């Protein structure tokens, strides 16, 4: 059995000819939790968007393999079907499309891709209901338009709901903790930990160590100026807390 899930090699990427990712390497094995920390503008969110296939970025060099396949060759929706999930920092609002319809289409598209049976609305309702209960969310959540008028906490919880329904191999949490109070962070982290498959991997992008007391990382990476400049364990976070990013600048 192959342990490796994601392998980013010598990645260089630009947006509008501006270099953002400068020679980045990262390897994630199945079941591991990785944290990427770094100052504003270091390229953390860019990395997550590149992994998901955002069209604004241009890959100049390097390669990304995901579950033995070439990730850069895949359309965004194929990356999703193959098991890559990005929880957005700012989930988008879509008027007139109910959460239920959206979730069912997304769910069935993935089933279709893997040539599995799609669920009719009743069957899907049953499935969604079970997941909602796990996340302590009310069923009326499904009848509202996608993220339309949701509070910050509700939007983030909705991301986790989508994540659990799509059952991904790799979850990227892009500042899932921003703008949330401590209780909400706890609910979300527990929702992830208690429900995610054992060999699914996590990449957590964050500014705040708080979330790490719930989601214990195996590796901590410090990212600066488009590169990972240091990799360690939780100790690194303590050092960072004490001395700030200045301590890592050469």
């Amino acid at each position: 059995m192959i342990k490796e899930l994601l392998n980013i090699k010598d990645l260089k990427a630009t947006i509008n000819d501006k270099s953002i990712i400068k020679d980045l390497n990262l390897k994630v094995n199945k079941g591991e939790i990785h944290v990427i920390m770094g100052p504003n503008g270091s390229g953390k969110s860019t990395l997550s968007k590149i992994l998901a296939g955002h069209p604004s970025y241009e890959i100049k060099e390097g390669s990304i393999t995901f579950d033995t396949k070439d990730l850069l060759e895949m359309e965004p929706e194929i990356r999703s079907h193959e098991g890559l999930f990005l929880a957005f920092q700012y989930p988008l609002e879509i008027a007139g499309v109910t959460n239920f319809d959206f979730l069912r289409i997304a769910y069935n598209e993935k089933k279709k891709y893997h040539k599995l049976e799609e669920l009719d609305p009743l069957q899907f309702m049953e499935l969604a209901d079970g997941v909602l209960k796990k996340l302590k969310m009310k069923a009326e959540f499904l009848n509202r338009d996608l993220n339309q008028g949701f509070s910050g906490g509700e939007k983030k919880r909705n991301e986790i709901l989508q994540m659990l329904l799509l059952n991904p191999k790799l979850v990227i949490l892009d500042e899932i903790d921003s703008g949330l109070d401590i209780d909400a962070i706890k609910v979300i982290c527990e929702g992830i930990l208690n429900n995610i498959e054992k060999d699914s991997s996590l990449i957590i992008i964050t500014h705040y160590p708080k979330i790490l007391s719930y989601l214990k990382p195996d590796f901590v990476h410090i990212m600066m100026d488009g590169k990972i400049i240091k990799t360690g364990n939780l100790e690194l976070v303590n050092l960072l807390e004490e001395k700030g990013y200045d301590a890592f600048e050469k």
Partner: protein
Amino acid sequence: MKENKTQTNFEIKQVLNEPYKYGFNTKIETESFPVGLDENIVKLISSKKEEPNFMLTFRLNGYKKWKKMVMPEWANLSIKKIDYDNITYYSIPKKKKSLKSLDEVDPEILKTFEKLGISLDEQKKLSNVAIDAVFDSVSIGTTYKEKLAKSGVIFCSISDAIKYYPNLIEKFLGTVVSSGDNFFAALNSSVFSDGSFCYIPQNVICPLELSTYFRINDKDSGQFERTLIIAERNSSVNYLEGCTAPQYSENQLHAAIVELIAFDNAKIKYSTVQNWYSGNEEGIGGIYNFVTKRGLCIGKNSSISWTQVETGSSITWKYPSCILLGENSTGEFYSVALTNNYQQADTGTKMIHLGQKTKSKIISKGISCGFSKNSYRGLVKIGINANYSRNFSQCDSFLIGASSQACTYPYIDILNSTSIVEHEAKISKISEEQLFYLMQRGINAEQAVSLLISGFCKDVFTMLPMEFATEADKLLSLKLEGTVG
């Protein structure tokens, strides 16, 4: 160098459309008049149809007014000059004498309607919908006539109505849209060939939904139908209208009139899904659609509601309107207009508040793709005696691609200080971030656009009857296919 492959995926661009599904034509023998229009042609139409004298007078009046009028040019449309001398004003399938039943209809024509998914065979009829099928300006047959007759509802072609109910026709025809109302209305009044007539007597809730299906087949003939719906006191009716035409590289003229009259407490709900041939991706061919639709809420508490989904025609010029005369009457207009390639639409409504405590609501959604032009034009007028009246208007436009246009022309005319008029307008573009979000969840670009559009149109689709709503949703997806590369 390796490019992120998805780069091109978002370039929203113009590519070939899904071919028009209804573009076939039916080979049947027709009887046509010589091209062009003069008094003799008008007389000939009237005599051919064995009409009573008042009809001939009505037609000639229309003709005289039309002769003095010029084609309106105020709309935001560029229209190729129409040669009115080169149009056939009357074309009928030849075998038509007076048909006793649908069995006598040319099987080719019945097949055409079958192909369109409209079954006139009562064995296979649509449940709960009575249909009047109009083929090149002539009504081919009406289903469920007997069932309707039991409740006193009259639903037949307007030619039959002129023959069998001349008193009703003489009393009501042209009372909402007069024969000289506008250029196209005058033209229609002088040459209209057929259409539907519907009369709902007092205290009757029409037991079926009524539907007319219009089909243009002949290449050079204009189509001029006329629909008249009368809802007496305490009655109500749901009316649906669908339209298709074959693909020709010539433009064809369609100038119809619909008149609605609602008495005390009566309700008329009129829904249209218009999918005339819209021309090819270079803008060649397609129907010129100039339609005057107007409803009169003459009675207290009466209500008229227009819902339209306009996806076809090369040119659409259409403003379904309500005259709110009766106290506490209500007018509504819900519209989705989608234009693609080189289509042009100038559509909207007029809400004329004359009575007290009258209410109106306008929800308009315009979607423009390709090189198309899509304009909303609406008038809200509050008359001097329309105390405590209200209007709410919401006009949203959605642009796909960089070469399409959306315009909004609201006209507001208020002569009464106790009334309230609200207007909201919004123009949005497909947001790349929204698309990316949906795609990250496994929904491909084309599907994502469809989803965004159907979300955008939801307020209007919910107003359509069930079968129509599904059809409209499908139709939009079909029309959008290929707009995202």
